[in-house]
C-alpha cells in the first residue's frame, strides 16, 4: 500500500497578498490583484499592466544580503517557503535532515538578473562588469537551493521546469518521493518573476497576453466570450508535504491529503493546446486513477483557466471528456481570474486554494465571467464564492511545450 501524503504547511506571495490568509480572503471576496506595471518603463510596450506582488520591497521583506544574492523569483520562493515552514512548525531537532527534501520549480528562472547583467555588459562592453552572483542568481534551481540551505533540508532536491505546469509537476514529484519512501517531508511548489521587458515583450509577441489596458482588473476573464489573453503575474506558492503517520505522530495541522498526480504531454504544438484537450484529459484521467478516485466523487476542479481563447475551450472539452455527464455537476473555477497567471508558480497557489476549499467548505469564484463563451458551458462558479462541502477535488496546470499535469486532493 502506498504511503499517504498530506499537506501540513502552506505559504505564498502573489498579487493578492503576501501570506496565505490575505490570499484566501481575496479569493473569497472575488478581489483581483492586477495593476500597472511598476518594475520597468513599459511605455513602448503594448501591454501596460500585470499582477505584481503588492507593496513588495526586497529590502523590507528580506534581511541583507539576501536581496542582492537572490533573483526576485527566488526571493518569492524563499518567502513562501518561510511561511510554509512557520506554518508546519516542524521541529528540526526531531527530524533527520536527509529525510526532508525540496521540489521547487520555476517556468523561467532568474530572468530579472539575466536581463540586468546582459544590459550591463552590453552598455560597458566589459566582461568584468558582470555580477559575480549572475549565474547563482539566474539558475532556475536557486530557489530550491536557498530553501535547502535555510531549513537544512538535505534529502532529495529537485526542480521542475515545464513552463506553466512546473508547480504541479514539482508537487507531483514530491508526492512520489514520499510515497516511494525516499523522504518523509518535502517542501514543494514553484516561484516565478518574469514581469520584465523580455517577459512582457516576449509573451506579447506570442499574442498570449490580454491587452485590455483600459480596465486591467477585468482583463483576466477565463471562459468569458470577451477574453483576449492572460495577465502576466508573479509570485510563489510552497506547500509542506508530509507522510501521514509522520504528521500525525507530531500532531501537525493537516489541511488536506494529496491523493494522486499524473502528467502527460500533448505532442501537438509548442505553444498551442491540443484543440480537444486530449493530453489534458488523459492527465486528469490518470491522476484520478493514481488517486483511486472515481470521477463522480470529484466535486471541484480548479481549472488551469488562463483566459486565452483556445486554452479555455480545450480545457472545457477535456473536463467533459473525463467526467462525462458528471461534468455539469462539477464546480470549476479559475484562480487566475483574480491573480492573473503566475506561469510556473500558478499550480502551487491553486493547490493552496483547493486545500482551503476542502477545509472550509467554500469554493472561490471565477470573476469577470459576464458572458460565458458558448463553447464554455460548465458551472464556473461565476463572480460569487459558493459554500459547498467537497471531499475530492482536482487541480489542473498546462504549460507551453504541451505539458499537462493534474493533482488530486482529498479532505482528511
Amino acid at each position, binding site marked *: 500500500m502506498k504511503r499517504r501524503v498530506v499537506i501540513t504547511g502552506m505559504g505564498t506571495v502573489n498579487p493578492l497578498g503576501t501570506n496565505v490568509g490575505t490570499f484566501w480572503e481575496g479569493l473569497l471576496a472575488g478581489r483581483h490583484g492586477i495593476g500597472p506595471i511598476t518594475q520597468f518603463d513599459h511605455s513602448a510596450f503594448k501591454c501596460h499592466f500585470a499582477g505584481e506582488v503588492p507593496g513588495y520591497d526586497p529590502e523590507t521583506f528580506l*534581511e*541583507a*544580503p*539576501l536581496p*542582492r544574492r537572490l533573483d526576485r523569483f527566488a526571493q518569492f520562493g524563499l518567502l513562501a517557503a518561510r511561511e510554509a515552514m512557520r506554518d508546519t512548525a516542524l521541529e528540526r531537532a526531531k527530524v533527520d535532515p536527509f529525510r526532508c527534501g525540496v521540489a521547487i520549480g520555476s517556468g523561467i528562472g532568474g530572468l530579472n538578473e539575466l536581463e540586468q547583467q546582459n544590459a550591463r555588459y552590453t552598455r560597458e562592453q566589459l566582461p*568584468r*562588469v558582470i*555580477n*559575480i*552572483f549572475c549565474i*547563482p542568481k539566474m539558475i532556475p534551481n536557486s530557489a530550491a537551493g536557498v530553501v535547502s540551505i535555510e531549513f537544512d533540508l538535505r534529502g532529495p532536491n529537485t526542480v521542475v521546469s515545464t513552463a506553466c505546469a512546473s508547480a504541479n509537476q514539482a508537487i507531483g514529484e514530491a508526492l512520489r518521493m514520499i510515497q516511494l519512501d525516499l523522504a518523509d517531508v518535502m517542501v514543494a511548489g514553484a516561484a516565478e518573476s518574469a514581469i520584465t521587458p523580455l517577459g512582457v515583450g516576449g509573451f506579447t509577441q506570442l499574442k498570449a497576453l490580454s491587452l485590455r489596458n483600459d480596465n486591467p482588473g477585468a482583463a483576466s476573464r477565463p471562459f468569458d466570450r470577451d477574453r483576449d489573453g492572460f495577465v502576466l503575474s508573479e509570485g510563489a506558492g510552497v506547500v509542506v508535504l508530509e507522510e501521514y503517520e509522520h504528521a500525525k505522530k507530531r500532531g501537525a495541522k493537516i489541511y488536506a491529503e494529496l491523493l494522486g498526480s499524473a502528467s502527460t504531454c500533448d505532442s501537438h504544438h509548442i505553444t498551442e493546446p491540443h484543440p480537444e484537450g486530449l493530453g489534458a484529459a488523459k492527465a486528469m484521467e490518470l491522476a484520478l486513477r493514481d488517486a483511486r478516485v472515481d470521477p463522480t466523487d470529484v466535486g471541484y476542479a480548479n481549472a488551469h483557466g488562463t483566459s486565452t481563447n483556445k486554452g479555455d475551450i480545450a480545457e472545457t472539452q477535456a473536463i467533459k471528456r473525463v467526467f462525462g455527464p458528471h461534468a455539469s455537476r462539477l464546480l470549476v473555477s479559475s484562480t487566475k481570474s483574480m491573480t492573473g497567471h503566475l506561469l510556473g508558480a500558478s499550480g502551487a497557489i491553486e493547490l493552496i486554494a483547493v486545500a482551503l476549499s476542502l477545509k472550509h467548505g467554500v469554493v472561490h469564484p471565477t470573476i469577470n465571467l459576464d458572458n460565458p463563451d458558448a463553447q464554455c458551458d460548465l458551472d464556473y462558479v461565476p463572480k460569487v464564492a459558493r459554500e459547498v462541502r467537497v471531499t475530492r477535488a482536482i487541480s489542473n496546470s498546462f504549460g507551453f511545450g504541451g505539458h499537462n499535469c493534474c493533482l488530486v486532493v482529498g479532505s482528511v
Partner: protein
Amino acid sequence: MVGTVEERVKDIVCERLGVNRAVLTRDLSFQHDLGADSLERVELVMALEEQFGLTIPEDQTDRFRTLGEAIDYIERERARP
C-alpha cells in the same frame, strides 16, 4: 557621494555583507571576522571599483584581507597623480 574613503568603504561593506556598521574596525578580516566567502570578497572588490572609479588588478585583490588594507589601498590609488 560625500564622505571620507573610510566611510564610503564601510558603507559598501555594510551593504554588501549585511553587517552592522557599529562593529566595523580596521583590523577585521573580511573572510574570518565578517564571514565573507570567496564570491562575496570578489563582489566587494567589484563594488569598490565601481564606487571609486578604479580598476583593481586581480593579482592585487589578495591584498584586501582586512578593512584597513582595503581603505589604505584605495587611498593610495586615489593619491596617484
